[in-house]
């Protein structure tokens, strides 16, 4: 267990990943997209990607070993013309069988440790006093975001400040949806009758494409959103302008500039 851990931590991850990256980028833009898990822009997506990479690396080692044994057996022991060999009469080998039970078990235990650590890190809710609160509501077929502390509500576009943890509380107005912004982090379902939680953080400014990942009806394929991460000062300015618009508007709810009005 320890040994496996040391082995994995001693691997030169940057080097391994570098080789992978070169291989992949060698293939041009065939491994990039508008919303790729492989290009994280925040600590949540980074943590998830590192878990994906470590497990993939371990799995590749296992794949090579198993396929090596398989290929050897298939090539070495195939019947040839006029083959005088008699097939072995072996029925098993207890030591081997213990070996290939115990070694996978140790690998599984190691993966379990990684899984549980990341699971607790990713689901630990940030301190509400120091993090931005956003309520996310899934509708057929659009996303609505409201900032309870700020009295602002938008649809389609979620504005967040760079470098700050954003605490999302999700629910749905109709059927189950799933909130997914691959570059910022994995999914959490928005479930009618429930409130679910997740946090995100953007470590750089930019806009990040998001989608509904749980099939929610005929418009599911088109249920998109954009997360717009602004430097804190710009974010504050955006909040002010929205609040001003809110105050001057006769409508009870604010509308994101350029966006569609929130259907009531």
């Amino acid at each position, binding site marked *: 267990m320890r040994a496996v851990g040391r082995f994995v931590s001693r691997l030169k991850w940057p080097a391994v990943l570098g080789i992978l990256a070169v291989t992949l980028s060698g293939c041009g833009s065939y491994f990039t997209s508008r919303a790729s898990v492989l290009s994280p822009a925040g600590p949540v997506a980074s943590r998830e990607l590192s878990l994906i990479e470590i497990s993939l690396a371990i799995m590749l080692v296992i794949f090579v070993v198993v396929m090596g044994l398989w290929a050897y057996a298939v090539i070495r022991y195939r019947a040839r013309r006029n083959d005088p060999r008699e097939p072995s009469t072996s029925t098993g080998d207890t030591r081997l069988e213990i070996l290939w039970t115990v070694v*996978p078990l140790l690998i599984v235990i190691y993966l379990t440790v990684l899984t549980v650590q990341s699971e607790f890190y990713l689901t630990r809710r940030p301190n509400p006093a120091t993090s931005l609160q956003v309520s996310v509501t899934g509708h057929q077929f659009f996303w609505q975001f409201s900032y309870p502390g700020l009295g602002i509500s938008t649809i389609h576009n979620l504005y967040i400040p760079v470098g700050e943890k954003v605490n999302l509380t999700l629910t749905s107005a109709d*059927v189950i949806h799933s909130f997914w912004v691959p570059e910022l982090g*994995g999914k959490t*379902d928005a479930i009618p009758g429930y409130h679910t939680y997740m946090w995100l953080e953007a470590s750089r400014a930019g806009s990040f494409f998001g989608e509904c990942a749980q099939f929610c009806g005929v418009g599911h394929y088109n249920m998109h959103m954009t997360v717009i991460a602004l430097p804190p000062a710009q974010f504050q300015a955006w909040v002010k302008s929205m609040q001003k618009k809110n105050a001057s508007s006769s409508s009870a709810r604010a509308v994101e500039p350029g966006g569609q009005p929130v259907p009531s």
Partner: protein
Amino acid sequence: MAAVAELVGTKGRQRSQSYLMSWLTTADHKRIGIMYLLAATFFFGVGGIEALMIRIQLSSPGNTFVTPALYDQLFTMHGTTMIFLAVMPLFIGFINCIVPLQIGARDVAFPRLNALSLWLFVLGGILLNSSWFLGGAPNAGWFNYAPISLTPFNPGPGIDFYDIGLQLAGIGTLMTGVNFIATIINNRAPGMSLMRMPLFTWTTFVTSVLILFAFPPFTVNLFLLMFDRLMGANFFNILKGGNVLLWQHLFWIFGHPEVYILILPAFGIISEVIATFSRKTIFGYDSMVLATIAIGFLAFTVWVHHMFVDGFGPYVNSLFAITTLAIAVPTGVKIFNWIFTMWGGKIKFTTAMLFATGFIPLFVIGGISGVMLAMAPADFQYNDSYFVVAHLHYVLIGGSLMGVLAGAYYWFPKITGRLLNETLGKWHFWLMMIGFNVTFFPMHFLGLLGMPRRVATYSAAMGQAVAFWNLVATIGAFILAISFLFFFYNLIKSLKSGERAGPDPWDGRALEWATESPAPVYNFAKTPLVRGRDAWWVEKTEGDGQLRSAEPEQDGESAHHAHGIHLPTGSIFPFLIALGLTIAGYGAIFGLLLLVAIGLALAFFSIHRMIVDEDPGEIVQPVGGAGE
């Protein structure tokens, strides 16, 4: 069909009925198995065409080959059909044809119940597919989550067809599970102890136990949904105090064991085929049995891994990640045992063996992505993306379907008496390996590039990589489809003019190879005496190459020549029960209470008759053959 009839199950039996009636009333496990295989192959074709339409639609961004509304029906029916109406009944077909032979039995424990299982599956499948012509097919995915399956979001009849079609087929499957548990416990030939059973029989046994425990929650779920949709109940309606996650829990408590119901029989087939063509006994038999039981047990402890993004929190997710990861251990044991069965063997690469060896790398890839998916925080990214689509097809095609095909090339001669053409078989194998990997390997990339599953189309703005890999997958799907044209042509051609197989074309090890091909209606002229694991191999190597009879010899002639063999007679009532329930199902879907009453009356009348009618049995005289 005519060719099949010529070959199968008519030997030694008087033909007093019309051709059609003899099939509608049969209680012979071999004929029931053949009908399972034929019907499931038909549904496999339907599901395959749906898959091709999906791939055409996704071949380029913004495609309008089908509308989003039709697309939703296509992916729902593709998944539902392949799982419930194709792969599972293909296995049940082989189980019916082969397991009674492997344990030296005359038939299954409850032959007429077996016929009822078949007809419920066939008519349930027809009812489900008739939705295409009667107001639209189901459109909420094969796992049909609430509340999108409820009337307010889904007013058409599609979901009712899903509900009632699967209810009918599911009851049939449940009875198959009961039947084979009873058969394997009670009908084994003398000397066939549990730890001498062939591994296909073992995996059938564990599969049957999984069916017995997994299908009732599904049945309950379908009833609750039916009450909600047809009678205004509120089990899933949050406005009236219902709960939408109730469906998900009950569904996956069924749904995860269902995945193992779809893979354990394949494990059994792979074990049989690899041992036979390596000319070795299976490596580590005891650990194979233990691993099968362990996988079966763990199957019931992992269902929340389908719900990692439901926000249950770190304790629940960690627990279910651990149980899921644990399944890798017994599965790994099986992989190593197969490789070491080949090790030191003298491997003959028939088409059946190609499929069995080819199964290993594909299933290992599916297992590897399975382990990666089990790590809950990573699953936050994979969940409901094309990564999952890739994984499940590596397991269901690379695993289950490769097992089905290994079984098809291996047992076709036993079932029909003729060999499948090996040249066409090898074309099928290699084209399928290429087509399958070209289709599904890129889907891993698509998932990581941010493509959610079940999208009717995607925008070119997603990037050229997404468009490129989708096009590659579509090309692969057509290669895969062409490989199956070779298979279907081979089936038809070999059935008509294939080489005669003889009783034991592969120099087999288990008892099915000790009787004629196809097996006579009574399976074995005398109940065999089993003297070891690999029962037939033992007789060929240590005995005189003849089965020992477990029946006392009488002077001059054996008891059977004096008295004949007692077999169950067929009955039309299993078919009529299934027909009545199907009619009632249509009545329920369209709110026609009179039709419900007529259907239920027919069903209950037939159940009553099936219970009170005594089965006089039928005495058949064995004619020559092995074991004499």
